[in-house]
């Protein structure tokens, strides 16, 4: 019964609308394609078209206006198509390229135009955002003072990242840049941070592997993946980061904290270079066009911490740049370094010698620094950098096989153990209290009696001991975010209890072995 009435009411509505409809003739701005090839269209006509406007070419083909001349318009095709020819008509739409935005994107993998790539339902949203948007104004911003924990000890202690900051991850190929970004995304589980991962020009297999890692660690539920792989057209790769930012901005303006990873901007620059060269724009250093700085600066400026009046949301950006042979003075790296609020420098030398994550602490910096650290972390990590710097200085002397005095030996021992404790396995994020306790132990040199290569195992054992016997200590540090002197004393106490346990057990074992060995 209900179904019939539903149909009936629909039919009534439609009939009324048809009666009220005014048939109009449609007038649209249009132009004629004069030349097309390599994904670039030259169009005559389109007198009122604006830069960055979307053009409709019939079917589902669209193009993006990039060049405006007196009687010609240059546009780049957004979908690969071989069905266009000279003489075809291109219609102006009056709109800038936009993407659907909203909560329905969480857990999905989409292309830069919002079409799904994960075989799921099409993305249907009431709200569309243009991919290009102005960055938040100066008075709409607040200072960065909330930490964004990556779960990686080396970074949270010495190169802390705050919500609303842009921190560049830069290094040669295969140094763990993507792994670092993905680990940060995994660490946001349960922290109410939305994550967006933008893959630009990556191998499909790599993106697949990232998606699987995220899924296996339960991180895909709060992540949106925007994907334009190496086989897609240059215009789509060019738009991808702006699409990701538009999606992230929707969450940011709703008051949420968002993390966006651009992997990587070097390939983005290459895609833009291809487009510009095809549009016959003049090329500059390394054949990049003149506005190669602007495409990244306007992208990264949209990451910010908003003021309370604007909802208090934030967008933290982790752009990734790949260098060639460690050359950070090349065109793109220097550009992006000057835009971001610091960089994490990954070295292949360190990676190969087993220091993973291969962070070069000396060259890495976070310009937000201590303002984005809780009190506990600030207290223990203040001297870590300095000690590591001393260690690196002294380490050169060991190569001479020279005789060393006791203080130098102490610095070397402490530095070696610090370096060892800062190593970490992939996809194993570590909580803030864990880092604080580990660094307290190391900075007070409480492991000086343990061999360097056993330091990590001993630390793991200590944490097991703490979890079994004194779980209130890490929980307290985690909640209050402060490391009191009493807590520090407790750590020492528990550590000697732990060491005592270990010593006692190993002595008894040895004694038993001797007795049984002697009698036998």
């Amino acid at each position: 019964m209900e179904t019939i009435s539903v149909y009936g009411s629909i039919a009534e509505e439609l009939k009324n609308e048809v009666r009220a409809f005014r048939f109009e003739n449609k007038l649209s701005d249009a132009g004629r394609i004069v030349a097309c090839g390599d994904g670039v269209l030259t169009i005559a006509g389109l007198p009122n078209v604006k830069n960055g406007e979307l053009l409709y070419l019939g079917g589902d083909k669209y193009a993006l206006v990039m060049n405006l001349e007196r009687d010609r318009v240059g546009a780049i095709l957004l979908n690969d198509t071989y069905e266009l020819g000279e003489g075809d008509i291109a219609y102006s739409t009056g709109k800038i390229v936009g993407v659907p935005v909203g909560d329905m994107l969480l857990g999905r993998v989409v292309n830069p135009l919002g079409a799904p790539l994960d075989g799921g339902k099409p993305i249907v949203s009431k709200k569309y955002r243009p991919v290009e948007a102005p960055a938040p104004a100066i008075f709409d911003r607040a200072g960065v003072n909330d930490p964004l924990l990556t779960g990686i000890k080396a970074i949270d202690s010495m190169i802390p990242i705050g919500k609303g900051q842009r921190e560049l991850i830069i290094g040669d190929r295969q140094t763990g840049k993507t792994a670092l970004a993905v680990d940060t995304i995994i660490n946001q589980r349960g922290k109410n941070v939305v994550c967006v991962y933008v893959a630009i020009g990556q191998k499909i297999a790599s993106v697949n592997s990232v998606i699987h890692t995220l899924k296996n660690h339960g991180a895909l539920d709060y992540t949106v993946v925007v994907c334009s792989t190496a086989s897609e057209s240059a215009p789509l790769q060019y738009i991808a980061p702006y699409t990701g930012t538009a999606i992230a901005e929707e969450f940011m303006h709703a008051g949420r904290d968002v993390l966006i990873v651009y992997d990587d901007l070097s390939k983005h620059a290459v895609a833009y270079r291809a487009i510009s060269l095809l549009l016959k724009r003049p090329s500059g250093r390394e054949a990049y066009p003149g506005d190669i700085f602007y495409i990244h600066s306007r992208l990264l400026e949209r990451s910010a911490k908003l003021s309370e009046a604007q909802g208090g949301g934030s967008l933290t950006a982790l752009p990734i740049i790949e260098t060639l042979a460690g050359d950070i003075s090349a065109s793109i790296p220097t550009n992006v370094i000057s835009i971001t609020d610091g960089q994490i420098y990954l070295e292949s030398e360190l990676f190969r010698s087993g220091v993973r994550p291969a962070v070069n602490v000396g060259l890495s910096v976070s310009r937000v620094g201590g303002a984005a650290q809780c009190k506990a972390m600030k207290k223990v990590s203040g001297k870590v950098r300095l000690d590591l710097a001393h260690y690196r200085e002294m380490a050169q002397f060991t190569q001479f096989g020279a005789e060393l005095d006791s203080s130098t030996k102490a610095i070397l021992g402490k530095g070696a153990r610090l370096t060892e404790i800062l190593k970490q396995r992939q996809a194993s994020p570590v909580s803030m209290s864990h880092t604080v306790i580990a660094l307290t132990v190391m900075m007070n040199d409480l492991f000086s009696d343990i061999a360097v290569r056993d330091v990590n195992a001993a630390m793991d054992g200590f944490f097991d001991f703490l979890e079994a016997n004194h779980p209130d200590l890490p929980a307290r540090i985690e909640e209050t975010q402060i490391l009191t002197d009493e807590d520090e004393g407790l750590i020492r106490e528990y550590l000697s209890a732990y060491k005592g346990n270990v010593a006692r057990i190993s002595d008894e074992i040895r004694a038993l072995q001797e007795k049984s060995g002697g009698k036998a």
Partner: protein
Amino acid sequence: MSDCLLAGILGLDWRDFLLHLLNFVILVAIVGLLVYKPVIRFVRARRDEIREQEKTHDEKMKEAEETKQKYTSLIGSAEQEIAAKRKEADEEAAKRAEAALAEAKERAEKLLAEAEEEARQEKVKAVAAIRGEVAEVAVLIASGILDKEITPEENARIIDDCLKEWDENNA
């Protein structure tokens, strides 16, 4: 006669015999003095040594006995600890099972509510979809009809209308 007997038997006379006897006594005395003391000392020392060894042996036996007892008690206390920990773990497991049950029930209720909401939304979507399809069918029919039915005269009228409108709007 006796002298002759002795002399005859031993080939000695009683003076030589006394001298030999004296000799023998002196010898024994000297040797006794020289040898007896050391020998006695040696024997005594040996006896003391043996006594010492016996005492050490007793002590070692006692020590071994003590060690054995100590380890037995250690094992005993370890077993007690294990038993206590096992009981603790059992209690923990029971508590956790209860919590899991409560959580599962809560989740089931939430799922039910979500399913209801989803069903309602599906209905709304279905209505919109029907509307769209009805519209499409209607237009399809209309275009089919118009395709067959438009005569050149009607077409001419449409064209004139268009031209009039464009003329008025300064084409």
